[in-house]
């Protein structure tokens, strides 16, 4: 046995040393703090359906490793940073749920929420497919799949994008299924005699014969000029609901170049509503409304909630606009902490007539709001803040970023 001692000793060292490390590693993984949504006023039942998702970083030890977490009314859960979880990745919650429910249909589909449309009967998907040509993208095609939830039948087909040669880039921004017609709303970059244009384009596809039956540019603006810049945005909607209207905000800015800096000043802002069924455009006028770049506004199918932050970020100004009556309802303000160092602003969503607001950043010095209000009247139903459960460690320094908010 004596001649085996070197070998045996090495094996013992390996087992003990690696074993101890594995045990310590497993133990230290559990030391995450608990985040809660602390009630300041109002009814805590209002936040029951609310889930916030984000990333947590402990910066005390200058160790910048993110851990994903979910915060709900009953506390926080951290996603184990295990190898397997990293392989699987972190698709947005809606995609994750769809992957669990429709595993076959979701194969080979992107994780972009905007590429999906879901209602009680169907789940539709559209994405753009192209070939890499020399110096530019070519042969744009729509890759479309529609799953019928009733009989489980999937229809998949591709359609060539009309005038593909003139397009520099196409990006699917929204999908709506209206009366058996699939409407794809895209952001196109078009070239015309060396001039470039950004346009919001709509392609209507008849599902019965799988052909594009109509397509038109809803709005078209020149791409990046010297003294002017244009910005066209779709107002956010819920991907789980059909909307007959698209709400588009077009902002025109003057670029002012000083010796020291380049500033932009809004000179004109237009709000358009486009009816997908009748293909008619209408202008919406809201006096004294200047939407900023935060994209907080939300459209729930019947009412547009125009939202902006006031200059210092202490107030969220909400202006509901009823599309059916073409009428502005009375605007209201929601009071926020308005922290000075906040960079990532607020997140908003509307569901069932309730407006949910949450700050996307929290540190020991920066407080984060969580607010639920009646979307029409502005009455605050719940006001709270994100907080650490228990007494926080003395030197603890952390950063918390919320990047997704959803209401079940």
């Amino acid at each position, binding site marked *: 046995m004596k001649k*085996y001692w*070197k070998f045996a000793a090495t094996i013992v060292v390996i087992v003990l*040393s690696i074993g101890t*490390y594995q045990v310590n*590693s497993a133990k*230290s993984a559990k030391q995450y703090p608990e985040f809660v949504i602390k009630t300041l006023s109002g009814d805590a039942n209002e936040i029951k359906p609310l889930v916030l998702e984000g990333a947590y970083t402990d910066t005390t*030890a200058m*160790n910048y490793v993110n851990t994903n977490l979910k915060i709900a009314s009953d506390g926080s859960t951290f996603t184990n940073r295990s190898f397997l979880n990293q392989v699987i990745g972190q698709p947005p919650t809606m995609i994750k749920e769809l992957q669990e429910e429709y595993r076959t249909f979701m*194969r*080979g589909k992107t994780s972009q929420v905007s590429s999906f449309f879901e209602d009680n009967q169907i789940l539709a998907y559209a994405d753009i497919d192209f070939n890499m040509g020399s110096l530019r993208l070519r042969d744009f095609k729509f890759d479309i799949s529609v799953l019928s939830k009733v009989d489980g039948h999937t229809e998949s087909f591709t359609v060539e994008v009309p005038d593909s040669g003139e397009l520099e880039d196409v990006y699917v921004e929204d999908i709506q299924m209206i009366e058996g017609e699939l409407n794809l709303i895209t952001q196109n970059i078009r070239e015309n005699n060396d001039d470039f244009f950004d346009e919001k384009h709509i392609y209507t596809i008849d599902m019965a014969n799988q052909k594009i039956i109509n397509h038109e540019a809803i709005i078209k603006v020149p791409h990046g000029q010297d003294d002017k810049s244009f910005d066209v945005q779709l107002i956010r909607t819920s991907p789980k609901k059909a909307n007959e209207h698209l709400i588009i905000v077009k902002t025109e800015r003057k670029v002012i170049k000083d010796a020291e800096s380049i500033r932009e000043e809004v000179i004109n802002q237009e709000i358009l509503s486009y009816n997908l069924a009748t293909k008619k455009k209408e202008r919406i006028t809201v006096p004294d409304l200047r939407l900023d770049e935060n994209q907080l506004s939300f459209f729930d199918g019947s009412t547009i909630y125009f939202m902006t932050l006031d200059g210092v970020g202490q107030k969220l100004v909400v202006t509901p606009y009823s599309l059916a009556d073409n009428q502005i309802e009375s605007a209201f303000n929601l009071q926020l902490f308005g922290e000075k160092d906040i960079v990532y602003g607020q997140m908003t969503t509307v569901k069932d007539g309730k407006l949910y607001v949450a700050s996307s950043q929290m540190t020991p010095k920066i407080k984060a709001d969580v607010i639920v209000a009646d979307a029409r009247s502005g009455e605050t139903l719940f006001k709270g803040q994100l907080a650490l459960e228990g007494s926080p460690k003395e030197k603890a320094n952390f950063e918390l970023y919320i990047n997704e908010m959803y209401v079940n």
Partner: protein
Amino acid sequence: MKKYIKLLNFEFNRIAKLFVVLLGITFVTQIIGVIVVSKNYLNMANEQIYDERINKVQFLETYGQMSFLQVVRSLWFVGPIALCLAGVALYIFLIWYRDWVGKNTFIYRLLMLPTTRLNIFYAKITTIMIMTIGLVSFQLIFLPIEILVMNSMVPNEFRADLSVVEIVTSILELSIIIPGSVVELILFYGAGLLVVSILFTGILMERSFRWKGIFAGLIYSALAVVILISPLLLQEFVLNGYFYPSELLVLEIVMGLIVLGATIWMSGFLLRKKITV
């Protein structure tokens, strides 16, 4: 089995000297590194506090506390690890070729042993794996000792204490060498085992067919790599992301096992039928 253990012990004793030398160099260099890096920090602190008349709090605000990560990021720490890596890489070839060198070629005796010749292959590959994991294990033992040395030099208020686990997980390269979970440990070192076995097969091809064998070995290795990554290639270029990431992982593991099996079979065949002394 007994024959295998005997062969393994024999192979291990042959590398024991190299193993100890590598460990010694690593330990000594890293300890010097700890002392140098700590001294540098302390000298800077002294200079700032006594010569520039900054108080302690201000100093800590501008320069921060010293943590062991500063040592880990220095050449004193990384250098010996790189040396060990190079040592193991070199020994993958040496473990075979040393048997062919000299007058009484040793491989002749090994091949004449009354046991299956694949045992030679198994013993050699296990030796390489034990040497690698052994170096890593000793590094894990050195770390707390080195931390202790730093703690004895740098006063409490000037240092941020980190545990071994925190240090390893903060440095990507270390967390690959020393994975934090058993699954990763098996996957990473399994992949390493596969690479070594492919290299061994290449070496055996060269030993069997000499010059022609080198080309055969290169073609064999390229083929093994292509088969191994074929699920990834299919996923990217043919199937347009058909598989979910977790399924792809399972496929890759299956492919790895297939390639490992084929490699061992090929090595056995070469050892039995084609090897020349």
